[in-house]
């Protein structure tokens, strides 16, 4: 029974990794931009929520709701005024600029909030659990997983049911022709990064409620996000969820065998998937 419990905890943890990854996947899918600062943006989101909680006394969920529009605007401006300038035929400039941004963000957080590890305040909700037969499930991991599924459903609806989603897909296919149809690719990219930062805020909320955080944990979140995206296949959102689950399950099984193996087991699972399916589980046909 302990194994079933371990696997279910792993699946639920996968929801958190899918939340880390969904924004990365969205931005990469639309503009082929690999945002190396994604993990640090998540950590920044967590600090923003913490700030709203401590300064205004808001409960964490409400603070995250307040942070979302702020993060959208930040993402919009970041894309419009900085990242759009790096896009082109050469893939190196966006990598260098987001790498620099990652270091700048870490140091700005370190200067502002110190290296002390922080935590969002817990409440009855964050420690509650429900009993399903012999297995006890935390309410927070369940909420995290449900949020990941909802985010992916919402993104799929946005992509396939709305005018904006059509413009996202058209711009992703061929930005020059999209501009001939009256679409401004620069604006489409800015909106996409804004939406990615809304998802980052959701990920940040659950990251801060689940465990301690400090300014330096961003890059590791980026690695988990990357692995989830690559396992799932670039551009497939449901694949990203599955990728997150695979890493989550591998980590909890690894930890159950030996706590030292938790992180390593996730990376090994990633390498194994790449050995068998180098393009991920659900690769997009036209890449």
């Amino acid at each position, binding site marked *: 029974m302990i194994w079933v419990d371990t696997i279910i905890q792993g699946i639920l943890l996968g929801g958190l990794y899918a939340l880390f990854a969904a924004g990365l996947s969205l931005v990469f899918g639309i503009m082929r931009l690999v945002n190396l600062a994604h993990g640090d943006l998540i950590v920044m989101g967590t600090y923003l929520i913490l700030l709203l909680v401590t300064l205004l006394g808001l409960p964490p969920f409400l603070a995250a709701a307040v942070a979302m529009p702020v993060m959208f605007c930040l993402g919009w401006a970041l894309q419009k005024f900085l990242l759009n300038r790096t896009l082109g035929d050469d893939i190196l400039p966006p990598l260098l600029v987001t790498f620099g941004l990652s270091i700048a963000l870490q140091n700005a957080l370190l200067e502002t909030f110190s290296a002390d590890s922080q935590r969002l305040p817990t409440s009855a909700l964050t420690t509650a659990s429900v009993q399903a037969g012999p297995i006890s499930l935390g309410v927070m991991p369940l909420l995290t997983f449900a949020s990941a599924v909802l985010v992916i459903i919402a993104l799929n609806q946005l992509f396939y049911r709305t*005018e904006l989603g*059509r*413009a996202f*897909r*058209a711009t*992703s*296919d*061929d930005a*020059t*022709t*999209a*501009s*001939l*149809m*009256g*679409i*401004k690719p620069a604006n489409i990219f800015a909106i996409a990064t804004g939406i990615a930062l809304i998802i980052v805020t959701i990920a940040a909320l659950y990251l801060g409620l689940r465990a301690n955080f400090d300014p330096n944990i961003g890059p590791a979140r980026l690695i988990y996000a990357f692995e989830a995206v690559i396992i799932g296949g670039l551009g497939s959102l449901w694949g990203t969820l599955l990728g997150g689950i695979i890493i989550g399950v591998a980590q909890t099984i690894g930890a159950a065998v030996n706590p030292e193996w938790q992180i390593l087991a996730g990376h090994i699972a990633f390498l194994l998937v790449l050995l068998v399916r180098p393009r991920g589980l659900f690769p997009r046909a*036209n890449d």
Partner: protein
Amino acid sequence: MALLQTRDLIAHYGDFQALFGVDIELAENETIAIIGANGAGKTTLMRSIAGVLNNAAEAVMFDGTAIGTRPADEIMAQGVAMVPEGRRLFPSLSVEENLLIGTYGRKTIGHWTLETVYDLFPILRERRNSPGTALSGGQQQMVAIGRGLMSNPRVLLCDEISLGLAPVVIKDIYKAVPAIKAAGASLIVVEQDIAQAMAVADRVYCMMEGRVTLSGTPDSLSRDAIHDAYFGAGH
């Protein structure tokens, strides 16, 4: 006054100069054809008008405004739509979604809607949910034209719409031209097929090596004059 006009239009790709002072004029409700061999600068001219390539502001005039420096999306919004060479459908979008992209972000008022485009090309109604790229070449060209029409443009730029298509299919596609004109659009048609260009256009411009070498109404141009303008005298 001309609806659309280029004045001494010069265009470069990096160090390579592709157009050397091109002047063309399109009147309201007129159809002009641009003919010429490969590399004559026809597509460059279309891309300059559509705003994919930037030019001097006064080099492209539309309805009395200088639009040479405007980006493609603004020129589209002003009423100049392009059917690009090679069709360029969006592979992730269905036929209907490709058509709807033509209306992105604005309410257009005019003759062309999904329904009227489907009436013009009935086969597209049957294939409306197929991916755009699953269609035959001719059907894809119909989607590309329909996508341009959906914005209800005042000027439709058609770049090599017969490229790579069978003659019978080309005839089918050109059958749509009278309906497009009747709905109020003026057309610039780029063609390699001289006979087709002569049949459809009110006036013809012939280009060679980045310059206009001949222009006039189809019946005023002799075969020999076109031959010389197309290939250069002395061939």
